[in-house]
């Protein structure tokens, strides 16, 4: 690894300028969103999005919470996301454990089944899943969303966790087995703690995906009372008139939970991304 001092100053300056420029470009939309959220619709209408704001106030955040309905959509998002997340992680870690550590007939077949599931574009599932939920009588319930999220995310999670568990030395489990530990015990006491980084990374990812999902609630939820924040905020988009300030304030508020999860677990998220890159 080269020492830092070896890099010429000029190169460093260029690099940093480049980094700062790219960062700014990335931040511009967020900055505009924040500014827009504090303007009024009339102001946006007559001066466009990129004008200097005439007035600045935080009223739209309260509007988003009250009139925008965030006070009911945001809890709904959690009611849907949390059980989905827990069920996905629980089931996929069990599945991954068996796929990684047991030899049984059709093991590869099941493994490919999980991998294949992730390849399936969800668009082709919209109609069958809607029909199924209708036939099962769970259409327009939280449960329908929790079930589809869990089922749909299971493939990816099992795939990642299985590959990670493969890297845990078999000897560890064998010695546990010799000491009389049950399989569930091995899973809970040895495998889970060892796969924690992967677990945390997946939890972060899955939380974001499920929390930000738009299409499934659109298909499976009919009443506003049960809508998560994504489809809920969309109801502020009219045919002709968009309630921009409230939509954007709402969207900014809705990113807070994802941010919090990310901040807490980001170390593992990044570690998870580079899993297996340096053996």
């Amino acid at each position, binding site marked *: 690894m080269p020492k830092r001092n070896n890099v010429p100053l000029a190169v460093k300056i260029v690099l940093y300028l480049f980094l700062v420029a790219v960062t700014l470009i990335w931040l511009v939309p967020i900055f505009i969103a924040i500014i827009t959220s504090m303007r009024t619709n009339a102001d946006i209408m007559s001066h466009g999005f990129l004008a200097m704001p005439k007035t600045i106030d935080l009223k739209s955040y309260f509007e988003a919470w009250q009139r925008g309905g965030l006070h009911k959509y945001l809890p709904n998002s959690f009611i849907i996301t*949390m059980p989905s997340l827990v069920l996905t992680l629980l089931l996929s870690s069990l599945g991954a454990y068996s796929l990684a550590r047991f030899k049984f007939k059709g093991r590869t077949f099941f493994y490919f089944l999980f991998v294949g599931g992730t390849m399936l574009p969800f668009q082709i599932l919209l109609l069958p899943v809607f029909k199924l939920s*209708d036939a099962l009588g769970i259409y327009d319930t939280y449960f329908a969303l929790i079930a589809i999220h869990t089922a749909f995310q299971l493939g990816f999670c099992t795939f990642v966790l299985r590959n990670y568990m493969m890297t845990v030395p078999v000897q560890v489990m064998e010695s546990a087995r010799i000491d009389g530990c049950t399989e569930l015990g091995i899973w809970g006491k040895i495998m889970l703690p060892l796969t924690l980084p992967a677990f945390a990374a997946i939890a972060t990812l899955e939380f974001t995906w499920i929390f930000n999902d738009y299409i499934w609630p659109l298909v499976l939820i*009919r009443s506003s009372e049960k809508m998560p924040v994504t489809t809920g905020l*969309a*109801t502020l988009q009219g045919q002709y*008139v968009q309630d921009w300030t409230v939509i954007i304030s709402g969207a900014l508020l809705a990113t807070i939970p994802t941010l919090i999860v990310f901040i807490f677990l980001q170390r593992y998220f990044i570690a998870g991304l580079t899993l297996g890159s340096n053996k």
Partner: protein
Amino acid sequence: MKNKIVISVLAALFVLGMAPLFAGGQQEGAAEGGQAAEQDVVVYNSYWSDPEPKRVEAELMEMFKEQNPGVKLIHSTVAHEDFKQAIRAYLTSSAPPDVLTWFAGNRARFFIDKGLIMDISDVWEEAGWNESYSKGFRAMSSVDDKQYFLPGNWYWWAVYYDTRVFDEYDIEIPKTWDELMAVCEKLKSNGVTPFTVGTKYRWTAAAWFDYLNMRVNGPEFHINLMLGKESYDDPRVLKVFNDYWGPMIDKGYFVESPASYAWAEAIPFMTNGDAAMYLMGDFIRDSYPKEDLEYLDFFRFPIIDPSVPVGEDAPTDGYFIPKNSQNPEMAKKLLKFFGSKEVQEYVAKELGRLVTNNKVDTSVYNENQLKGREIVNAADYVAQFYDRDTTPEMADKGMNGFMEFWQNTDQAEKILEKLEKSRQQLFEE
């Protein structure tokens, strides 16, 4: 140490995650308990997601609840674009909403023909709508003399203009095509773009096609074209493109690169004096800056050929009950509420739209509404709008064609040939 933090975070997630499952379970239980008491329920989903209509509708819902304390009303607003997709799911599910909003005319006919909409002739009879609604609205809601639909409110299209600009250049309101062209020329020579338009979402271009085609070829030809009975490569259609629309674009009578603006983003051209007119529906009023509203006026789209009957676009929205409705009695109650004189008057006053019930006294209308009503009343034929009169698939192809034409005004023939192919495919199935 680090692991401990992660474990506790994950544990917290777990507890948080499982809690709602149980809470959710209880809620479901409570809902079932409510049903066991056999409370009357009515589920209403609407696409009124624009801020103003949304506010008025919320007020109407309160009114309904007050009048019917025993009925549990579950009202949901769905984003307008999403609603158009979701309605297919609603209508095929075994428990659809009991009342839905929808477009009158062809778009409703599509579902009626598929047997997805409930026959509500009895409601028309009981509520006396056969007398209190005009023949036109009744025909719009009927198939084989059975009523399936309740028209609720409508608005007109017209050429909106800024009176300050017209006054400044001493411009009279144009009544004929030649006058309009003279106005455009005068404005252009004074550095004002005659028309603003934002075609990012394409339908604003369709309005131009609707009006030019109706004025040049008459509403009968236009509506037959919409129904797929006339062909797009007809020389009469080509005439609209090459003799009227194309020259306007070529002469720079429209603002530059309209496709980069949504319809409302093109309004500032008018308010800051860069452009003078906008062919638009009356909902323009909801988005026009309040301080400029007093300078906004409108006139009827000029007559091109006086021998041709006059057609106008006046999109009508209304309500229907899905065939599978679980609570048809309550649904009919809600429908009667929407069609009643009181509710219609309220909508007319609060929303500035025009309503359908003849019993509504015209004194509730303001000057604008009366003027708009007059334009439509004077018409020989009332169309809905391009994307409501023709099938959604054809509207999609057609509007793409209009956008292409806007970029390449010399390609009309080729574009229309392509549209004709689409028409044959889409209407022959």
